[in-house]
């Protein structure tokens, strides 16, 4: 799938590095941080597939994450279903929400989609608090069962999921389908004139993106063993968007690196406590101004270019 040898080497190095890290530095703390970073990777890559490729920015990815997590919470605690049912169910519910918001907004030009996603996430968070009798309010849902008892086992499962999802989305992004998405970003009117059903492509991409975000939400729920309305917060979406920007928008592999890098850096910033989110938002502004192409994807392109010159 990755045509060039250097890309295959890079992927292999990344997977081996991520897999060996918890073995070299054992301890549940590091495993926990890495698990969270891998789940953020899933969210970032799923955001990038829709928004990075088509240029239609989604300001409410947390909506899909939240509904995925709450689906997992309800299925596991209220209905007592096995945790593995959560993943497909969360994907389905998230896809439904994507359809609901995508259908009226993605056929329009302008900022309607971005704002409708933001509104959707804000309102869902409010609803979780307002209907606290069903949703547990501020506390959320507690007492979920872990998918895999061993922490390390779950980390490897999440890492495998991240690799599979990234590979699938990278494959899609390189296919005919991905080409059309990029063309939509370039010039939507021309695509329409060429007889491409632009709206259909955008909606299906959003549904794919939502499915993986929902799955990530369910995984996060089964990892934290609880679900809270904070998952719907705008901050969650902004964090993901910052990760994608750091990684390089539209490159699929970049956002994965951006997510892992930022989660690990955030751990180092832990002693700044309350200042963490402030640092995040200021970082985003600085990146928008000074590094519009991101950090990871451009660096990797440079590495690839030097490698190819040498061989």
């Amino acid at each position, binding site marked *: 799938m990755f045509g060039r040898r250097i890309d295959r080497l890079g992927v292999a190095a990344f997977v081996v590095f991520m897999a060996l890290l918890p073995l070299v530095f054992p301890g549940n703390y590091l495993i926990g941080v890495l698990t969270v970073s891998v789940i953020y990777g899933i969210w970032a890559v799923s955001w990038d597939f829709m928004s990075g490729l088509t*240029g239609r920015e989604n300001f409410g990815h947390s909506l899909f994450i939240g509904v995925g997590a709450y689906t997992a919470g309800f299925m596991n605690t209220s209905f007592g279903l096995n945790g593995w049912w959560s993943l497909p169910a969360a994907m389905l519910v998230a896809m439904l929400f994507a359809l609901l918001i995508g259908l009226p907004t993605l056929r329009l030009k302008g*900022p309607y989609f971005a704002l409708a996603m933001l*509104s959707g996430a*804000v309102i869902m968070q409010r609803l979780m608090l307002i209907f606290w009798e069903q949703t547990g309010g501020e506390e959320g849902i507690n007492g979920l069962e872990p998918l895999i008892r061993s922490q390390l086992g779950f980390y490897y499962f999440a890492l495998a999921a991240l690799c599979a999802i990234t590979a699938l989305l990278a494959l899609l992004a390189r296919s005919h389908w991905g080409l059309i998405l990029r063309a939509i970003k370039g010039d939507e009117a021309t695509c329409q004139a060429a007889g491409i059903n632009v709206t259909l492509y955008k909606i299906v991409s959003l549904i794919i993106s939502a499915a993986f975000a929902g799955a990530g939400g369910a995984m996060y729920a089964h990892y934290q063993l609880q679900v809270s309305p904070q998952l719907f917060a705008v*901050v969650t979406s902004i964090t993901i968007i910052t990760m994608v920007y750091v990684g390089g928008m539209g490159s699929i592999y970049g956002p994965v690196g951006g997510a892992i890098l930022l989660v690990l850096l955030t751990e180092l910033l832990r002693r700044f406590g309350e200042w963490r989110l402030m640092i995040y938002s200021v970082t985003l502004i600085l990146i928008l101004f000074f590094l519009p192409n991101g950090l990871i994807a451009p660096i990797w392109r440079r590495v690839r270019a030097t490698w190819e010159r040498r061989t």
Partner: protein
Amino acid sequence: MVEILIVGAVSSAIYAMLAVGFTLIFGVARVLNLAHGSFYALGAYGAYFFTSTLKMPLALGALLSVALVAAFGIGVERVLIRPMRKSQLAVLMISLAVALVIEQALFLTFGSEYRNVPAFVDTKFRIGHVDIGGARLLALGVSVVLIGALWLFIQKTRVGSAILAISQDPVAAQYMGIPSDRIFAVVMGLSAALAAAAGILAGPFLTVQPTMWLLPIVKAFAIVVVGGLGSIPGSILAALMLGYAETIVGYTVSTSWTEIVSVLATLLMLVIRPAGIFGRRAAF
């Protein structure tokens, strides 16, 4: 019945003040400013800070707060938004990031607990057989006056004509020698001042806390979609519709469901008539 009529009018008035500024800056500069709700929050916090911490009289504190927020809005437009104006999405991103920075700054300086903004009038008035807080009636009155003044300003003054001209055709306006960048600054200042005034007036009866910018931006978006992006009469009409719809749902069904009204209205309008009631051509 009387209560629904008045409470609905008050929330409509607050919504109208927010939505008119939001739609004005879009209609003129094509900027969708997600930091608009933050101006509202900053207005309320400014009034709180000047009266509670610096012990100023409320009238002075309120005026100072509005002026500072307007200046801040102009600064944000000049430094952060103007270089990004080429791409609408970059503007959305940067203004959302600004909103988050403001939320965090408020959180770090004032903490997350609710703050009390003092009211200009504390007495209650009896209308028919219901008691209505003076702060609410004042909010209604002031917002009608402010929006009326804005309307006169746009229709009657030279700067107002320039605003109209740019909103109708930015390129032609530039050819006529209208300094569009300076007009954008004026409009941004006006829009931020209106939002700040809304925050100060609503502060006494709504919660003042760092995340208070979020719901207003959602409501403003719903109103602007229903009324038509860029249309001031449209957003006033839509603000009335949303304000009353929410109040009626709140009184007849349950206050829990009021939050859904705005999202439903947005989605329905986008399905039925994406241009909004007043469409895009009738900008003012």
